[in-house]
């Protein structure tokens, strides 16, 4: 087990290294640079700025310098957010996105799992149909639409909820709903189909024949087996929601990290592109390792080799 985890972590480091290297060179292949703007800067100013950020050196030297600094935990200074280091930006903004994304995942699990289980047990009944329609719609409707509609009705028309920022608990309601709608519905569908598989198993029939109550049979016997696909999905879901959503952050003016992933690219903020990409890669790898470990605990038959 321990050996497996160590191996996974080492593989993760290698993956992160490859991601960093590829990103570095691909990013430099794209035309344009951080100092290119609608108005030409004088060649002198251009040269001075390039020298300041070390962009005047040959590309491979820049790469070596960057990787060297990275090993010391220094991701450099942002070119387009003057005065902020990349470490600052991630340090300030990740907690905001993580809190929002974490809440959304919590909501998605707490609603999606029971919803899927109920649908499975009421298979073919009205309740099942309602849940199927709801979850299909929830998967099909994009988050920018739900957020815009919520903003229009709840904030502009009814003036019930604030539309800007994250100052109080009420500010979280709309972004969390917008973020969790898709995963909730996805989890509900996942849960429904895996629960249906499990219910059909012989041991479930045996349990019921032995007089185990429905409630107990669901929670003690069925759920543990049926939840495995959801756990698998949870790794990438946590990674993607906790690192922030560009669209939701833009619509609700939330100072999160999701925005930086996207906006760093058109502005060619090289250190920030590198920093956010490496951070995201590491986070996904970490989440996947954690999910694998959780897997082994839930179902000991799965041997981690």
């Amino acid at each position, binding site marked *: 087990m321990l050996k497996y985890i160590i191996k996974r972590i080492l593989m993760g480091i290698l993956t992160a290294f490859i991601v960093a290297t590829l990103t570095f060179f691909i990013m430099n292949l*794209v*035309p*344009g640079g951080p*100092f*290119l*703007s609608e*108005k*030409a*800067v*004088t060649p*002198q*100013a251009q*040269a*001075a700025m390039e*020298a300041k950020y070390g962009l005047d050196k040959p590309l491979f030297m820049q790469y070596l310098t960057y990787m060297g600094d990275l090993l010391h935990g220094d991701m450099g200074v942002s070119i387009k*957010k*003057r*005065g*902020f280091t990349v470490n600052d930006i991630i*340090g*300030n*903004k990740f*907690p*905001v*996105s993580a*809190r929002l*994304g*974490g809440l959304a*995942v*919590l909501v998605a*699990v707490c609603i999606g799992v029971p919803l899927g289980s109920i649908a499975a047990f009421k298979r073919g009944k009205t309740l099942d149909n309602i849940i199927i329609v709801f979850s299909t719609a929830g998967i099909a409707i994009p988050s920018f639409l739900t957020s815009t509609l919520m*903003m*229009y009705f709840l*904030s502009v028309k009814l*003036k019930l909820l*604030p*539309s*800007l*920022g994250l100052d109080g608990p009420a500010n979280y309601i709309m972004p969390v709903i917008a973020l969790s709608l898709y995963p909730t519905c996805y989890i509900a569908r996942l849960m429904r189909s895996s629960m249906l598989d499990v219910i059909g198993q012989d041991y479930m029939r045996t349990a019921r024949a032995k007089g185990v109550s429905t409630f107990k049979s669901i929670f*003690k016997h069925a*759920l*543990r087996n049926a*939840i495995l696909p959801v*756990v698998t999905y*949870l790794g990438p879901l*946590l990674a993607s929601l906790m690192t922030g959503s560009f669209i939701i*952050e*833009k*619509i*609700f*003016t939330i*100072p999160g990290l999701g*925005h930086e992933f996207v906006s760093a690219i*058109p502005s*060619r903020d090289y250190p920030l592109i590198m920093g956010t990409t490496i951070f995201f890669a590491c986070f996904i790898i970490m989440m996947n390792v*954690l999910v694998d470990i*959780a897997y082994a*605990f*839930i179902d*000991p038959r799965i041997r981690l080799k």
Partner: protein
Amino acid sequence: MKKSIALLLTTALVISTVLSGCGGSNSGAAAGGSAADAGSTADTGSAAPADTGSTSGGTSIDVQVGPSPETIDPALNSAVDGANMIIHAFEGLLKFDKDNNIVPGVAESYEVSDDGITWTFHLRDGLKWSDGSDLTAEDFVYSWKRVADPETAAPYGYDLLNYIKGYEEAEAGNVDALAVSAPDAKTFVVELNNPCVYFDKICAFAVLVPVQKATIEANGEAWTTDPATYITDGPYYMTEYTDGAQIVFQKNPNYWDAGSITFDTIVWHLIEDSNAAYAAYQNGDISMIKDVPTEEIPSLEGNSEFNVAPIMGTYYVTFNTQKAPFDNQKVREALSLAIDREYVAGTIMQGTYTAAKNFVGPGVSDEAPGSSFEEETTKKYGDHFNVGNYDADLEKAKQLLADAGYPNGEGFPEFAYLTNDSGYHKAVAEYLQSAWGELGLTMTVNIQEWKTVTADRRNGNFDVARNGWVFDWDDPSNMINLMETDNGNNDGKYSSAEFDKAVDDARKTTDLKEHYSKLHEAEQIMLNDAAMAPVAYYNDFWLQKSNLKGTWHSPYGYWYFMYGSLE
């Protein structure tokens, strides 16, 4: 049993990450709080001058002029949203009033030597920084040298300071060569290479305000990101900076004219999404927004809260004059005349732009105070484009194209129009495709990402491209000079000896009258050569609640909120 505990692990995973998220952000909020405290100590530390402040008490205004600025370091800023905040936090030697005239700032008066070379500024008595320390002429020496310093790499360094003696040496690293000096604490002297009749406007530019040496040396570039270290000399100082959310300014009791400042607090909401800004405006959370969703504009017409006002700048089309057939003046003129400017500005751009009649538009002054360069052009030469009678221009265009050897567009090679897809660019491109199609020409629209457009355009890798310019300061030369042979922004590589001479004469003269008449001459040369095709003049459009009074918008694209009030 053990298994059911294990089942909780996944939930624990979620909860722990959520909680860790909470912890992190709490400490963030605490940091914000302490920073705000530091701000208020600056406030109490200067209790004596504070009582000269306003008696209105506790008024606050919420505005949106753009998303998070790239920087609010005056020397490093090159963007209009950053400048909007800088003019509220800092004050330079000179500044602009409501009518865009130059008025004294922290310099009470100044005089220029007869040869136009030496400019001497006299600072006011008792000037102070927001932290209570004294502001002297030495601060200006430091700040201006900092802008020239290659270590600072100020984007506007060359544009603003190349007029000053010793700039070339300073730019090469010997900063002290820059001919700015402080003979005493209240006198600041600048020596120029050549006379410059609009140097007063440059002195009022937001990049050349004073910044405090102590805080910059102690904090480096990060001095602008922490309220405690963002020391200012203008109407406001900062009490909060949350990147991606808001910047909060508080009235600076140490400002020499604090008594005239009305709002105690300005909250700059850093909203990127125009729909979010619009929602917050409709909610009443924000009193003024700059980013109005373009799809809302038709419904806002006639609404007294919707404002449109000129800013100095022109939307134009650049021809690659080094490439056939665009090396032919007749071809360029034909393409230019075939554009229905009234239709583009009024319909395609929904009236948020104004049809261009010449190259330099409204808002740019001429010789006399309060005069307009554009109006003078109309008076002297008549308008180059017949905006009211497009059909006449179109006939002329067809004739010119035939004269150039392409009757009805026959034999004209297919060409591409390079643009990015934001604002009205794509709609304008599609319009040009049909307008030039009328002439019998085939044009494809080449949409690229913005940085690619900029790079390709600068490298001459295009046929015809979208272009535009917003003035840095109120002098026509700032845009007319773009067509100079060696100008870095001359993307179409237009070159005319006659034009270059007129521009150079305008640059070197000490006579204001000659300066402007040479620039008028230069503008006519480039318009007659169809060096590019002006399309429309820029405007700012914004929403402002009707109870917000006393603020104004300048043709620089700046809003002045400090003297306003909410009624």
